[in-house]
């Protein structure tokens, strides 16, 4: 149940509500006074419901009930004989006025509840939208503490997270005074008389009405902040206790009994946002692992081919040529046969080199990004203008990603764009690799079509990078990629 006391109002609104509660019914009575004989008491009472509803909307239950009271006095004083006194002589008038008080109070409280419910639904909808559009968990956490604080009569709200080392940390906070609620500088132990302990033990909402004798660090911190009455509800993420949402007041006033239930609706959203973020992170990590495993396999196959098969074939070729030199001059046929075999072997070796290069370019593992891109540029079917500032070696997965992006872009420029020149800029400076590949071709490349561009985007994203494509028809295609160099 949503009580009037649960509504948070700004100070100005509160003042306006009280002014309207007192002045509204009185003004209605005075305004209708000239028509007293024609409209009668019932019409006045009906009209008096208007300020009651208005006050309930902006000020909550207490001002609304006050408006009912002022309305009662106004009606009795001005419209029920004897006029000028609160006494009511006629029994019919008395019944009408009592009915007004009952109906007015009921309408006022109903309006307050409905508008509270609407506020709460609006807050939940805002948070759900935030969570659904994949905002970062931190953003959702901050928004949740703010919405909860605004909606409940709390002075501060916090989102606490249970850490694996048996402590809690504060991941977001809000205060009514607007004071910055700092996250705990450190993790705090729990185990004494604190919400963290009770909820950890029961997995259920809990309430603490005084931190004066708190015996654990988290409780002591709450006491130091001046918290008196606090309510916390557990955030359960996929069956495990993740943390708690805490609403607290710094005054003597206890938080209303329905606080637990109202907090619960928000903790579900927090849990959903966390679960979403966790699955997104897991998905990204697993995608990166799949790509890394693929790259590693290709690198290994290339190595094995090169170190094993290729080297052996090359040695065999040398042996054949050595044997050829030993053939007596008169055995022309044998010499020709050996020569043919040597040549055939040479072709096989070349063929294998071609395959190896496609699997993984040797220059990349041996020379790094700079030499590898130069090699790509030299081999490109479309002339390349290269601006290369990438001297140092980078983590392998980043080198591989950058190499494939440039390689694919050059292939596209030659195959689809009918370009006559491609500008390739590669800069590995500070903590970021920037690739820019611009051609002067026909443009119109569509990343949503089954082009290599989708594969490129996947590659870029697995190393945490971003890719922008501009490819309006007739203006060429330009590809901008930034990849953070995360050395860990």
């Amino acid at each position, binding site marked *: 149940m949503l009580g009037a006391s649960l509504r948070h109002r700004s100070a100005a609104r509160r003042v306006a509500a009280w002014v309207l509660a007192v002045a509204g019914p009185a003004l209605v009575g005075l305004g209708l006074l000239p028509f007293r004989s024609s409209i009668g008491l019932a019409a006045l009472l009906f009209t008096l419901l208007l300020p009651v509803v208005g006050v309930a909307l902006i000020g909550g239950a207490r001002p609304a009930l006050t408006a009912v009271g002022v309305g009662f006095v106004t009606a009795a004083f001005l419209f029920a004989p004897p006029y000028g006194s609160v006494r009511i002589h006629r029994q019919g008038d008395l019944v009408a006025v009592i009915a007004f008080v009952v109906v007015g109070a009921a309408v006022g409280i109903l309006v307050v509840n409905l508008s509270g419910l609407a506020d709460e639904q609006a807050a939940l909808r805002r948070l759900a939208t935030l969570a659904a559009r994949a905002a970062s968990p931190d953003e959702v956490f901050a928004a949740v503490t703010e919405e909860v604080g605004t909606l409940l009569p709390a002075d501060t709200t916090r989102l606490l997270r249970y850490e694996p080392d048996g402590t809690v940390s504060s991941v977001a906070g809000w205060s009514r005074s607007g004071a910055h609620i700092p996250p705990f500088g450190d993790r705090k132990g729990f185990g004494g008389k604190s919400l963290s302990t009770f909820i950890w033990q029961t997995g259920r909402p809990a309430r603490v009405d005084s931190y004066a004798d708190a015996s654990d660090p988290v409780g002591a911190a709450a006491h130091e902040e001046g918290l008196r009455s606090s309510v916390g509800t557990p955030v359960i993420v996929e069956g495990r206790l993740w943390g708690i949402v805490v609403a607290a007041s710094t005054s003597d006033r206890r938080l209303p009994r329905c606080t637990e239930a109202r907090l619960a609706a928000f903790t579900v959203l927090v849990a959903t946002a966390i679960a979403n973020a966790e699955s997104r992170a897991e998905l990204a990590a697993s995608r990166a692992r799949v790509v890394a495993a693929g790259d590693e396999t290709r690198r290994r196959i290339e190595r094995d081919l090169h170190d094993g098969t290729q080297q052996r074939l090359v*040695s065999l070729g*040398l042996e054949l*040529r*050595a044997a050829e030199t*030993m053939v007596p001059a008169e055995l022309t046929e044998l010499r020709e046969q050996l020569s043919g075999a040597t040549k055939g072997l040479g072709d096989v070796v070349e063929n294998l080199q071609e395959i190896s290069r496609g699997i993984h*370019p040797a220059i990349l593992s041996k020379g790094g990004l*700079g*030499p590898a891109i130069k090699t790509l540029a030299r081999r490109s079917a479309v002339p390349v203008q290269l601006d290369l500032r990438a001297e140092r070696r980078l983590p392998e997965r980043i080198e591989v990603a950058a190499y494939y992006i440039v390689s694919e872009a050059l292939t596209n420029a030659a195959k689809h764009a009918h370009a006559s020149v491609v500008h390739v800029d590669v800069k590995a400076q500070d903590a970021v690799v920037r690739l820019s590949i611009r051609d002067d071709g026909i443009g119109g490349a569509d990343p949503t079509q089954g082009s290599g561009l989708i594969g490129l985007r996947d590659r870029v994203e697995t190393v945490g990078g971003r890719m922008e494509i501009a490819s309006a028809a007739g203006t060429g295609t330009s590809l901008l990629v930034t990849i953070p160099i995360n050395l860990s």
Partner: protein
Amino acid sequence: MPIRLLIVDDNAHFLEAARRLLERQGMTVVGVASTTLDALRRAEELRPDVTLVDIELGHESGFDLARRLAEGTEAHRPPVILISAYPEQDLADLIDASPAVGFLAKSGLSGGAIFELVGRTDKG
């Protein structure tokens, strides 16, 4: 006077096959080595006319060895020819940046090719 060669490669098959072929073609293989350290020691001790260095020496880099050989000692700075089972175009930028006098693909290794590379440097 035959050219005196030192061959550095970590592949025993290749060392054997290359030695046999090059000697047939009139070169003298004065020694072989399969690690950087071994190669530097042999070069110092044998004073070859040319050292053939494989670009890959297991975990070591033939480019590094070529650089160290080229820095050499005052008395002896033998020309280095890089060799590899990779074709030259695959590693062209790294080969260009190295102080080696040239590159020979292993499959195209021959006394004539070595002679040509060294002869060219002598003249130039």
